[in-house]
């Protein structure tokens, strides 16, 4: 009995000497919350945003930057990371990674798949890290921007994106799933810079009232892991509406009479039914949505107390959604994309038919038509019911 304790203590003490690598004091490791990957011929440029905790939490030792971005090239991501690690005095901790930013060029060259595989395989990068892409700038540049609101850009980007709702965003395994599945093309959120890049990379950016900052731009549409087209954020929201993943946003419509506008704030949107009909070579897709929301700004002339007006408004919103969705579809058709997953709905309803069209679906989608019908519940028309005069 006693020698058991003895052996145990010897073993554990011995293990201290043999494996130091697992143990890191908090001041021996530096944490990164955002990882950027950019295109490089035959490899990658990896940029790692290492944060300076003292600066961010306000316990200043030296007046240094809240975070440092290290950049290194490598044929694999790991060699690049190793190079970064060689350049820093501390142990790199990637386990806190919250977002992986892919540079636009990398996405356009179709390297998304490799990255996703890498993240799935990596023991360090957590499975729930979000993957986004950039528009206009390199990932490494965007990571260098000083964030005026949250203190460090990784958190700012994450919070900006999280506001959209969890369902809209994608982590590595979800992207992998969409890559595997037929009949749906991936769409990933992208970020872009508002303001001057040079100004944003300067610390003065923190001291001005009009800083350069990172914004959520919308969704980038991918085809087989290659970035094809950026949608602006309003279009993106309508795109996500048909995927059943949208949360509160404003739909502006024209009044039943006249050209004035009114705003409808959408709270909940769900796809109730998806159907498709094949007539000759024309695919027509019928979506029935369940929407609920409020009437906000109201410039029209109808009396809101009148149920008749409400139903007229509903028709108008319906029309807006229908036209918006068809606009997105036509954009997609131009680029031979299927971000709605129309092919997928064929596959699940009629696998036989799907097998016939699978190969040339990207061209056949040009014959697709969307027919969106929304069942709208207006929960609240406001405390003051505009009579419209």
């Amino acid at each position, binding site marked *: 009995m006693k020698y058991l304790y003895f052996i145990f203590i010897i073993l554990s003490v011995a293990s201290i000497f043999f494996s130091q690598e697992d143990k890191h004091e908090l001041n021996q490791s530096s944490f990164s919350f955002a990882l950027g990957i950019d295109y490089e011929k035959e490899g990658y440029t990896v940029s790692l945003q290492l944060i300076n905790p003292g600066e961010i939490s306000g316990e200043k030792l030296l007046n240094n930057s809240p975070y440092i971005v290290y950049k290194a090239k490598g044929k694999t991501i790991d060699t690049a990371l190793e190079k970064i690690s060689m350049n820093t005095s501390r142990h790199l901790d990637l386990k806190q990674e919250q977002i992986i930013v892919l540079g636009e060029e990398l996405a356009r060259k179709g390297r998304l798949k490799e990255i996703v595989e890498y993240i799935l395989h990596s023991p360090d990068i957590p499975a729930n890290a979000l993957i986004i892409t950039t528009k206009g700038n390199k990932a490494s540049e965007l990571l260098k921007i000083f964030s005026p609101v949250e203190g460090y850009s990784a958190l700012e980007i994450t919070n900006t994106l999280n506001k959209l709702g969890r369902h809209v965003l994608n982590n590595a*395994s979800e992207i992998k799933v969409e890559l595997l599945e037929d009949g749906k093309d991936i769409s990933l959120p992208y970020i872009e810079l508002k303001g001057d890049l040079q100004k944003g990379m300067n610390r003065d950016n923190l001291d001005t009232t009009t800083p350069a900052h990172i914004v959520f731009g919308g969704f980038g549409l991918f085809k087989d892991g290659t970035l094809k087209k950026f949608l602006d954020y309003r279009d993106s929201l309508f795109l996500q509406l048909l995927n059943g993943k949208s949360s509160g946003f404003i739909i502006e419509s024209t009044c039943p009479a006249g050209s004035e506008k009114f705003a409808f704030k959408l709270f909940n949107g769900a796809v109730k039914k998806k159907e498709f009909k094949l007539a000759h070579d024309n695919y027509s897709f019928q979506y029935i949505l369940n929407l609920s929301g409020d009437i906000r700004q109201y410039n029209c002339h109808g009396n809101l107390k009148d149920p008749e007006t409400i139903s007229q408004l509903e028709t108008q919103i319906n029309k807006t959604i229908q036209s918006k969705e068809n606009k997105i579809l036509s954009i997609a058709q131009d680029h031979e994309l299927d971000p709605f997953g129309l092919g997928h709905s064929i596959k699940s309803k009629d696998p036989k038919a799907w097998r016939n069209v699978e190969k040339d679906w990207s061209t056949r989608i040009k014959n697709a038509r969307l027919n969106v019908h929304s069942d709208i519940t207006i929960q609240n028309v406001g405390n003051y019911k505009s009579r419209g005069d």
Partner: protein
Amino acid sequence: MKAKPLIGIMEMQFVMVLFLLGSAIILGIGLDAGEYSWLANLLAGITGLFLFNLYVYIWNENRHQSLNFILIAQFGRHIGFIISIVYAVYFAYIASRVLNDIVHFINSTLLHNMHPFFIKFTIFIIIIYTYSKGLEPFVRSAVIFGLVTISFLMLIPFFIVLSGNFHIDYILPFHSLDVKKIVRTVFPALVTFPYGELIVFLALLPFLKEKKALVKGGSIVIVISAILLSIFSFLTIGVLHPDLAKSYSYPLVTTIEHIGLIGFFQRLDIMAVIIFMIGCYFKITVFTFASIFVAKDCTAKWKMNHKSLVSAIFIVIIALSYLYSDNNSLHVKIGLELVPALLHVPLQIVVPALIVMFTFVRGKLA
């Protein structure tokens, strides 16, 4: 050896729950059946229920004796003795395999750089400690660890569903039922692990106090375990997708890694780690106890030194754990392909079936 009854049925049930769920739930069994893995798990549960009742039937027919006694009574002294030794080594081997499971697991989730030697030996010393305290405290501790495990298992599904990572569209709509695929998943892998491994309890059952309650109590445990395994495979598939789930080493850990709870706890996979460690600890210890009991019964007539026998078994376990376990892939490959065919099926199904046949024939002759 005449066993003193020590164990209450409740504690035995908890040991069985931990034995069945602990490692199986983390290793994500039956995920090969894709979106029908929940069905495969239920099917395996039913088969397991049948197997368990078969074991209990054998035990009841042989006057509630220990495994060694049953084998000698049915196969004669010499063949019975050899089969008993085979069982002792088999249990030791499974113990060593689970030991390797946990070492690989700890190395890949918690301590990436720790030398496996230290992990293997530290947990092994804990097992020796447990053995030195005796069967009774070990079985009792199952209640406490069982309550922890079950409460975690109750919480995790809620977290998964609430976190919004569960995609019902990964599973629905059900395509045509691929019966072949399900059956291939269930037999033999899913039936033998974890349900068939219940044969190890034949070595522990003589210590049970309430002998009559076993059939009902054990069956309840198997039903609950099968349902839980089924729920968890359903959730895992829903989070990770049918095509991807099977390619993870520890699907449940990855599943839970996706959960972010109330914005504060980013990672809950520590829960899975705790469940797995508890499960493995119980499995190794149960197998070690069983192996030692069988070996002790076998050598009873030679009056072997008790201590040296026990030490021998421990050395066998640690030695076997170095057999074909250089890397996890080889370990898993052997576990999925060779072990079920060569060890599990003969020792978990064929031998018990033979015993039942013999008992039947003898009953007819008498």
